[in-house]
């Protein structure tokens, strides 16, 4: 678990840039992002669409490599790895949770959770035990384990997906809008689960544009136009004000509740 590398940052990214070569045009998604995440942190990455948060997540998750800059994941520099080495990192060091859950619909819950271990050297007889303990950790009732995943509710599916992300005991759990497809109550319970996993020592980075969700984390990193616009403890950050929609350029250096009325004024004021 995380305490093995207690002294090493889980994420140590410096001056990451990413330029996509499109048809004729170049798109710059990241302009120089630096980010360090210590073991045991619970971080939300926020930002409007186009801010580069998906690109950052892909790089952090070893799905992609930066154009320039260095990225060390658990002390291992991954910015120059080839496809096979990146796959190895994803297999051993990162656990992914997706907005759309991405379970195999016809496969049982157990089969879905066992799947990441197919690509590792975990012995056969150990797999079911590890899957079972991951499913217990996310609080999914044992009666559901043999159900096909498309028979579950959204909240149950996301629990299965989180269990799947945990079975290879990653040093980083990366969640891309994990509550985006869930109703508020279910989303809250999934966030409670993440909080509990974090209390148990898991390092979690999640992407969201919902301020309510970000409010449940301990640290907020806000991206804007491919740059880090704000990096603060959740208690100090402008979560409520700028969670959704475009962030005005001045916000980054304007602490305090100055822009707060903008969100609440219209409906409440008129009634």
């Amino acid at each position, binding site marked *: 678990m995380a305490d093995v590398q207690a002294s090493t940052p889980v994420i140590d990214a410096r001056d990451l840039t990413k330029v996509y070569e499109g048809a004729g045009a170049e798109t710059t998604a990241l302009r120089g992002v630096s980010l360090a995440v210590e073991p045991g942190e619970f971080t939300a990455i926020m930002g409007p669409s186009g801010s580069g948060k998906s690109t950052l997540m892909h790089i952090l998750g070893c799905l992609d490599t930066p154009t320039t800059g260095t990225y060390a994941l658990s002390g291992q520099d991954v910015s120059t790895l080839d*496809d*096979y080495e990146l*796959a*190895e990192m*994803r*297999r*051993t060091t990162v656990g*992914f949770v997706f907005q759309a859950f*991405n379970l195999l619909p*016809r496969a049982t819950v157990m089969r879905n959770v066992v799947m990441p271990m197919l690509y590792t050297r975990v012995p056969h007889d150990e797999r079911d035990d590890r899957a079972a303990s991951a499913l217990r950790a996310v609080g999914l009732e044992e009666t559901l384990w043999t159900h096909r995943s498309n028979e579950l509710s959204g909240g149950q599916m996301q629990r299965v997906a989180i269990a799947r992300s945990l079975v290879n005991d990653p040093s980083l759990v990366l969640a891309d809008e994990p509550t985006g497809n869930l109703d508020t109550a279910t989303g809250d319970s999934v966030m409670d689960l993440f909080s509990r996993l974090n209390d148990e020592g898991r390092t979690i980075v999640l992407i969201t544009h919902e301020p309510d969700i970000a409010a449940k984390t301990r640290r907020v990193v806000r991206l804007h136009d491919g740059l880090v616009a704000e990096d603060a403890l959740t208690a100090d950050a402008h979560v409520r004000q700028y969670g959704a929609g475009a962030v005005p350029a001045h916000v980054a250096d304007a602490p305090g509740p100055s822009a707060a009325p903008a969100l609440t004024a219209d409906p409440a004021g008129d009634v």
Partner: protein
Amino acid sequence: MRFSDLIAETLHSLTSNKVRSGLTILGIVVGIASVIAMVAIGQGSQAAIEQSIQAAGSNLLTVSPSAAGQQGPGARSFGASVESLTREDAEALADLSLVTGVAPSAQGQAQLVAPETNANAQVLGVTPSYAAVRGLTVSSGAFISERDDAANAQVVVLGATLAEDLFGEGVDPVGERIRSGNMLLTVVGVLEEKGTSGFTNVDASAIIPLSTAARYVTGSEYLSSITLTVADEDQMDAAEASVEGLLLQRHGIADADYADFSIMNMADLMETVSTVTGTFTTLLAGIAGISLLVGGIGIMNMMLTTVTERTREIGLRKAIGADSAAISAQFLAESVTLTLVGGALGIVAGWGIGVAAANLLGATAIITIDSVLLAVGVCAVIGIVFGYYPARRAASLSPIEALRYQ
């Protein structure tokens, strides 16, 4: 990825779309079954033809008279239209070291009148050695004897079907008499049924002493053929050369191109027939192979559809740590499994079709280990060849793009 996991994943994904997998397998089943069936029928017919030649005796040389200067397959003439071979020739050939048996014969056609019915049949004038050379045995009575031949005896040995035609089934005609022209022939024997072999259907022939035939049927001392047996099949060519040399010398012909006889070598004939039937079998298998190709394209089509449909799954597998090789192996395993299952069913189906069709055609189907192994090999190759492209395509998908795919 472990092999057992690969198999488990493969079976899981193939069984989750049973109808499509089934139809794809069917394409391979049809292809393999037709190849197996065609080869089985082809090889069965080949064996049947070879067996028929073998029954006639593959160690036989047949010398026939032929017009001088016209030797060769196209100009060969059977029957007595050219008169060049004599009993003395035959007796001289018997002294050659490689020759173990000599059977001179004269052939004609005659109307045979039995008490109840009559028939037009081939009449063969032969010496007693004919039975040994052609491998004939009597089911009743005896064959022509030396004494019969020496005495121009009016006796006849009937072929099995001719005996039946003249006297009816189950009747032993030995001792009965047959009239033919101004001969009154006493039946002394009936031959065991031999089946059509070579070029003479002995079953439908009446066999009389050579001297009797010369006097009453052909009206000449000349022979229509001399059949020789050679001790060893490997020495057919040497025997043929010595026979040719001796006859040229006896007939006073210097140039073999002007020989007044031709020699047919059964070993050569056998070889020719084998080549022809072998080509025929290959042709049949080739045509059947086209359906196998179509089956293979069916697999590729299905695998490409599958890769497209499962783009998100591929993205997910990559995100949780599968590398390109693992993805590639998974899709390749699926296509190879489809072809191997199809191949196994195809072998069974082809076996059944081959046996049924052979029964219908009155032949036997021969399924050799070779053709089964070939089918299995071809299946594996098809699975790999037609699975390779879709598998590469799946493996080369970017996980980011694949995860976004709707």
